[in-house]
């Protein structure tokens, strides 16, 4: 019963993240919703590794890799957003050809 509650919470975070990612008009808010999606997946991994795999903890190790990849992606994403802002002075997400010269 506890497993199902945690999985339902992670499914909720995932769907809220997808909704925010699609409907946000601001690039930084889209980055934040992407972090929500990755954290929902991490909750799933850690919960399954705790319930089914207490000997080898493969889910825990994969979630550490997901955290590292998310850190790299936030760094690159914020660099891209700041360079877009520097050239066009606007971060609306529907101007998608902004990095063209």
């Amino acid at each position, binding site marked *: 019963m506890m497993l199902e509650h*945690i999985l339902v919470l992670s499914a909720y975070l995932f769907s809220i993240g997808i909704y925010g990612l699609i409907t946000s008009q601001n690039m930084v808010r889209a980055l934040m919703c992407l972090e929500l999606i990755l954290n929902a997946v991490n909750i799933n991994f850690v919960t399954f590794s705790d319930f089914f795999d207490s000997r080898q903890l493969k889910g825990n190790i994969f979630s*550490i890799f997901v955290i590292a990849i998310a850190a790299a992606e936030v760094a690159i994403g914020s660099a891209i*957003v700041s360079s877009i802002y520097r050239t066009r002075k606007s971060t609306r997400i529907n101007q998608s050809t902004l990095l063209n010269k």
Partner: protein
Amino acid sequence: MKSISIYLSLILHRMDLPGPIHDFLLVFLGSGLILGGLGVVLLTNPIYSAFSLGLVLVCISLFYILSNSHFVAAAQLLIYVGAINVLILFAVMFINGSEYYKDFNLWTIGNGLTSLVCTSILVSLITTILDTSWYGIIWTTRSNQIIEQDLISNSQQIGIHLATDFFLPFEFISIILLVALIGAIAVARQ
């Protein structure tokens, strides 16, 4: 009878706290997660939504402590709250403008369609979760494992596996982080 008692002791071994405290903490963290998730998406001021993302990340880290995964909880707190959330706050505060307060998230057709799709995804996931018989799966995986007393803590086990079985992904992750940070600095520098 002996197998049932072993099964019950394995299930109860995970819950170190007494039952009501565990449930209360779970409800508390769950409500923090629900409100924080709504706050990230629905708040209009991007600084408020960045802070509510920080609340979500701290609640998830406490979830990991309740799930007996102390290393991932510490890594989440250090990396996500300490580095990634701060980087997002830098991005929010650096890119300021008066246009953000007009960013209303108006109820357009696209928003309604997306909320319909996301609600259907959520409902299908919830029905799949509630229809699966998890205790049958626990039973079949438990009977394959040797039941021993764990003398090694969680962090030590993760360290052992990272150093022996998962050494190659570990090195690749370090190369990926190096390349990503050099690329981010090169893009942001001009």
